[in-house]
């Protein structure tokens, strides 16, 4: 082929990697020299690279970069080996939290290698699926770790899922059906639970087998509770969405709901609760505002709210209530929330809020 000549895009030849190690040889020496090796990649007690444990890092493609050489790209077989290593010898040994930044970056590099080689078939699916699961787990499990940004985790999750959806579509067109398709399409529904366009498009494209899969049915039920009865003309504004929160949190905590599906919806908790508080605020009466005494029939106990909205405990609920400017009062019978008067303008919680997390781990991880 003459590199100076123009060729048709369909005649393009995919580059095929032949790197047999988890990290290309050049990068190992380069990073040893640059001193950018991580502890997990060094020979313990030294600054030298451990050639068996270094893993190729993710590098954003930038203008001026040379085209990657085959010796710098790993074929699917090696990528699988890399992934097994990361899961069994890094995550399993060092824990999800401590290994997070390392594993996250190296998983990304696995996806990148696949993209560069234009591998989109079954092998790509098998490599993407665990990565998606990993991001779902981290978005939930590490959301109160200060070094982890849950929003970024969700971003990677969405990218991974998007690739997966494309792979499934292409495979389905060739009459190949992957065993876990329903599971990941279910995650996709929930990851984009507030994107109406995604929901509709997706609904139309489901094959009956995927649609009737128990995973998918639970995901759709969660989504329907989430969306329950939005105002007919609310348009695309997601934060106005009302949910059937009373049922939603029950279903999330139900033993029949798979753990990762529950993790997936956890990223929407802020919105769900905000909408729930609004609905409660509009419909509950907290008595005469002039008098200080709240009539006993109108009392809203914080413990009831905490139970209804799936909070860890009363204190967690109070943090949220105070955020919205709801007054909490101590009474001998328990703490009550003066909810039922209009609170000021809408505010949103930062996603990485600590208190969003703990209830979940307790309820879901140790049912």
């Amino acid at each position: 082929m003459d590199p100076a000549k123009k060729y048709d895009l369909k005649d393009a030849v995919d580059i095929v990697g032949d790197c047999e190690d988890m990290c290309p040889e050049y990068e190992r020496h380069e990073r040893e020299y640059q001193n950018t090796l991580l502890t997990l990649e060094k020979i313990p007690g030294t600054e030298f690279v451990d050639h068996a444990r270094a893993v190729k890092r993710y590098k954003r493609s930038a203008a001026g970069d040379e085209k990657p050489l085959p010796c710098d790209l790993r074929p699917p077989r090696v990528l699988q080996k890399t992934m097994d290593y990361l899961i069994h010898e890094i995550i399993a040994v060092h824990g999800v939290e401590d290994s997070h930044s390392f594993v996250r970056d190296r998983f990304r590099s696995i996806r990148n290698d696949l993209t560069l080689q234009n591998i989109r078939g079954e092998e790509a699916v098998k490599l993407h699926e665990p990565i998606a699961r990993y991001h779902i787990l981290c978005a939930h499990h590490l959301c109160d770790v200060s070094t982890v940004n849950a929003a970024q985790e969700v971003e990677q999750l969405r990218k991974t899922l998007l690739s997966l959806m494309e792979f499934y579509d292409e495979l389905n067109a060739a009459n190949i059906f992957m065993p876990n398709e329903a599971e990941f399409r279910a995650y996709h529904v929930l990851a984009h639970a507030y994107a109406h366009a995604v929901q509709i498009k997706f609904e139309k494209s489901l094959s009956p087998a995927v649609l009737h899969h128990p995973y998918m049915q639970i995901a759709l039920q969660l989504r329907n509770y989430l969306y329950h009865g939005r105002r007919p003309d609310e348009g695309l504004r997601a934060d106005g969405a009302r949910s059937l929160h009373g049922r939603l949190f029950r279903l999330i905590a139900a033993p029949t709901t798979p753990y990762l599906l529950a993790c997936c919806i956890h990223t929407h908790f802020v919105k769900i609760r905000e909408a729930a508080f609004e609905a409660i605020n509009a419909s509950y009466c907290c008595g005469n505002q002039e008098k200080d005494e709240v009539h006993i029939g109108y009392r809203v106990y914080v413990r009831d709210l905490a139970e209804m909205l799936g909070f860890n405990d009363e204190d967690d609920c109070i943090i949220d209530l105070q955020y919205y400017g709801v007054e909490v009062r101590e009474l001998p019978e328990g703490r009550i929330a003066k909810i039922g008067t209009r609170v000021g303008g809408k505010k949103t919680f930062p996603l990485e809020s600590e208190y969003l997390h703990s209830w979940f781990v307790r309820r879901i991880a140790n049912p």
Partner: protein
Amino acid sequence: MPLGSKNMCNSTRHAITKGTELPSIDLFPIADQVTFKYYTGVLAFFEENYAVAESELSFAFDRCMVGGADAERLILSYLIPIRFLKGCYPHQDLFTKYPAMEHLYGDFALAIRRGDLGLFDRAFDRLQRPLCRRGTWFTVEKAREVVIATMMKKVWMLENSPTRLPLTKVQQALRLSGNDSDIPEVECVVANLIDKGFVRGYIAHQSGMIVLAADGRPFVAPQTVAAASRSAS
């Protein structure tokens, strides 16, 4: 649309409706107008812009004549669920004329008329696949609330229209319809109805009572609710 890329439609639509170079769409042959209105209506439907969708699709339905039944069925499959959201359902004559529509939406129409939540839920599960194929399953779900509001109104009337309705009464109705719910869940349902304006009143949480507007009209017609929320937004 065959490309499945709805996001590309907007710029085209914009060029047609907002562009100055082209004559107004009203000046084109009616057949083209109908086709255009149908597609803009469907687009608006998928964008949850139901007011626009309704007017565009109604236009198309009223003036569509050439293709006859097929085209009308297509339009109706979107138009009927939009009307559901306002608590409107088609007359039996329409269903008799289009049996396919009756198969899809007949039970929902009946459920909305009667406030029969059980019927609605059963139809919703049974018709999941065909509705999904048309992309309307999700929209039909939103009409569930209208059914609950009607159901609650019936409970209220059976109780001789009191101003204070115990939550347990609504709970019983929900149970009869196959939705076994405890009181917090019932409260949540009622709170949503009040918040959205279907019911005028408030919940006295601790005494488990719904206190309804005393002027004898605590229930607001879904159509009014839809119109009110439209003008608010």
